[in-house]
């Protein structure tokens, strides 16, 4: 992993990996959503609204995975002082927040016909909303840290690690507390879903994950290019100053 700490090596890999992630992810998402929308069957109890699952579940997974990315990068930043770790954490924040918001909105749109309400303050929905607010707080803190400290402060990394406590709360909320939300249908190596729903769901989840990875790589490339441009301009300005 430390081999990727070198920005030049990272950029060499990101240049060919990013289009593969975005292109492959886009194709998989297109096929999976078309399959889910037009060819997968309606569910016996929920009818056509079950088709929202092909967006809602990948968005929920990526909302949580985004924060795990921030937490992992924060750990690498604090323990190994990995030069790309803070950039990776910042790159995960926006896509993580976008997918968390998509999860909340599609869940609400699914809840109205399925439960008869747009929103309930139960454990799963509330902990997911808390995750969205954690993203907003983390992004504000990272921006303030960049403006005041040139990104050298450790506060965002510590916040990233502490905020990860919400991830198991989201996961186990439907087991620990009574909830409108159903219990997990897919666990390690087991699925309560029939294959006709499961395959398009797995394909959509994999496709959105590739798109997420592509966005993170694009954002990391943008941040690195910004840093390199700043450093070069500063060096040139220093050379012009006569002491």
């Amino acid at each position: 992993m430390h081999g990727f700490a070198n920005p030049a090596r990272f950029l060499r890999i990101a240049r060919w990996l990013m289009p593969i992630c975005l292109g492959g992810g886009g194709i998989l998402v297109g096929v999976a959503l078309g399959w889910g929308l037009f060819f997968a069957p309606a569910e016996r109890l929920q009818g056509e609204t079950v088709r929202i699952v092909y967006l809602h579940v990948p968005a929920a997974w990526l909302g949580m995975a985004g924060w795990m990315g921030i937490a992992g990068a924060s750990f690498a930043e604090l323990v190994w002082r990995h030069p790309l770790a803070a950039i990776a954490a910042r790159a995960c924040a926006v896509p993580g927040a976008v997918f968390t918001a998509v999860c909340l909105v599609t869940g609400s749109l699914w809840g109205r016909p399925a439960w008869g309400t747009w929103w309930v303050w139960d454990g799963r929905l509330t902990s997911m909303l808390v995750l969205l607010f954690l993203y907003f707080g983390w992004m504000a803190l990272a921006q303030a840290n960049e403006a005041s400290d040139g990104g050298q402060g450790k506060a965002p990394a510590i916040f990233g690690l502490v905020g990860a406590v919400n991830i198991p709360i989201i996961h186990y909320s439907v087991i620990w507390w009574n909830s409108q939300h159903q219990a997990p249908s897919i666990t390690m190596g087991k699925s309560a879903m029939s294959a006709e729903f499961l395959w398009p769901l797995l394909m959509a989840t994999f496709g959105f994950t590739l798109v997420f990875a592509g966005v993170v790589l694009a954002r990391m490339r943008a941040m690195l290019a910004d840093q390199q441009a700043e450093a070069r301009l500063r060096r040139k300005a220093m050379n012009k100053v006569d002491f």
Partner: protein
Amino acid sequence: MREAIDPWTFVIASYVIGVGATAVMVAMSLLSMRRAERRRDAARKR
């Protein structure tokens, strides 16, 4: 009495919001990457 709800309205709204938000995020990430790399290249040439 149950109100009549057309499920397709909710399904289509979900797809428009989910796919739209993802597409906007991808486009903005690519644009900001291009802009930043062009700025870096310009700084190198100066």
